């Protein structure tokens, strides 16, 4: 079974969020980058587990500049066999999806994280599936493969749904699908020698792009309430905040 895992690079979760060029671009200065947690903890780890159980291979794919190679090497250290980097500086989900689809022929399973923690788009998986005319199941929390059939549990509002589909297909991974795995020394050493193929981007338009950024207006000073006077808190919630 050939598995393709789409990985994205995102700022580390405690990174400062600031903008430059008149608030038109994210200021990466001094920011540490990580692999998008959903891609790493759930999609990639589950892909490696499936390969270890059923045989086959795991390829990690990233659309991005050479600076992303560190994140890609981490995917190789966690257990991907090889990697593809589409050399580009993507500005939209659709651009990314078209690059991935162009490289995704011949895979039995394509996994993404449920969303990225920077632009929170949650749309690349669906776009890739549409470009390849494959089924797409989002928010998978459990994935079992038997022969050429996938059984997926996914989160839906207020519950979960269990479905079945034949390979090939595209699945986005959410919490529950696997457990975060720290790469060991051997994995890190081996990752250095695994193939990372850099390929040029195909032509694709950006149809929706972020043009400006702002920070949320700060909260006003917190009102401390006497712990022995919860009636007062209830009154404020009803009359001042008007939320009860």
């Amino acid at each position, binding site marked *: 079974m050939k598995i393709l895992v789409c990985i994205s690079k995102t700022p580390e*979760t*405690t990174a400062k*969020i600031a903008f430059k060029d008149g608030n038109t671009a994210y200021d990466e200065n001094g920011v540490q980058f990580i692999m998008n*947690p*959903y891609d790493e903890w759930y999609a990639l780890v589950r892909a490696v587990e499936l390969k270890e159980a059923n045989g086959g291979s795991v390829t990690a794919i990233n659309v991005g500049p050479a600076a992303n190679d560190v994140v890609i090497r981490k995917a190789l250290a966690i257990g991907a066999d090889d990697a593809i980097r589409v050399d580009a500086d993507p500005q939209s*989900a659709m651009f990314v999806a078209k690059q991935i689809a162009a490289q995704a022929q011949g895979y039995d399973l394509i996994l993404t994280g449920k969303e990225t923690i*920077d*632009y*929170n*788009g*949650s*749309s690349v*998986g*669906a*776009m890739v599936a*549409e470009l390849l005319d494959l*089924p*797409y*199941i*989002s*928010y998978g929390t459990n994935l079992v493969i038997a022969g050429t059939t996938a*059984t997926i549990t996914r*989160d*839906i*509002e*207020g*519950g*979960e*749904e*269990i479905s*079945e*589909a*034949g390979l090939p*297909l595209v699945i986005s991974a*959410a*919490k529950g699908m696997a457990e975060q795995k720290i790469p060991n020394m051997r994995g890190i050493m081996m990752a250095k020698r695994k193939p990372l193929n850099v390929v040029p981007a195909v032509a694709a338009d*950006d*149809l*929706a*792009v*972020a*043009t*400006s*950024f702002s*920070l*949320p207006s700060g*909260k006003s000073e*917190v*009102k*401390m*309430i006497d*712990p022995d006077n*919860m*009636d007062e*808190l*209830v*009154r404020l*919630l009803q009359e001042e*905040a008007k*939320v009860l």
Partner: protein
Amino acid sequence: MVLIYTEAQNGQFKKASLEAITYGHKTAQAMGTQCAAVVIGNADNPASLGQYGASEVITINNPNLGHFDSQTFASAIAQVAQSKNAQVVILPHNSSGKSLAGRLGIKLNAGVVSAANTLPTVEGGSFKVKKNVFAGKAIAEYEIKSAVKILTLSGNSVQPETGGSEATISSMDVDVPASKVTIKETKLQQGDTAPLPEAELVVSAGRGMKGPENWGIIEDLAKAIGATTACSRPVSDIGWRPHHEHVGQTGVAIKPNLYIAAGISGAIQHLAGVNSSKCIVVINKDPEAPFFKAADYGVCADLFEVVPKLTEAIKKAKA
């Protein structure tokens, strides 16, 4: 025309769909056009969507659309959008809306902005809309440049508004292939509280609870106000609470009207997913807990004493 994808459960339109209609109606007004709703499968009284601003409701009944599958549903919606010349397609930002939006973007060669939370600004030829990015730590304005635009609407960003009239109803035939996905089982939680991403009131608790056996006081408080329960990440990681309750940067991002947090320190990754809440109440015994800086109201005390007192005060106020 502005086209809205709606969903019903047990015949009733979901609140997210009504929010999308109100939002779509206002978007259509700004563009000088009308808003139409598409309903796939059974729903009671589709004409009632007119109350929320739809001037037309298009119903689709097709044996290949018996269960949700993004592939077949996207095909049906794209056919409606094309035949009605839709300039904008709006979907709720929920599990189905998210999986349809990307597909529709490809089918209609349309730019997609997901989780929009303000009305778009439409000026001349330009179409811009805002959404939260970096899990709520910042706001971005997007410009969509394609002829057709696709938006998913973040939950609880607009409230459904009534005041319209009955909508005209027409049915439409679509040509869709059989679904390649089979649904084996659907498990919905019992009870009548809203699912977390849609909830208006949320009561959340963290490691300060000491153990899963203590959650009774949190459930009592939630029950007293009709809130949905949530938790911090470590609490779901160690299995005290189910994964779907985990809120934050790597869990569910929520924006309820009221978020009550007990025994949660307020780490940056937790705040990211909840700081869009309209009103935040923090109960923590540590006066230095970072969460107080992000709160509207704070109670610095032992949660095991305060939470039951708050529940009593609410019951008293309601009685």
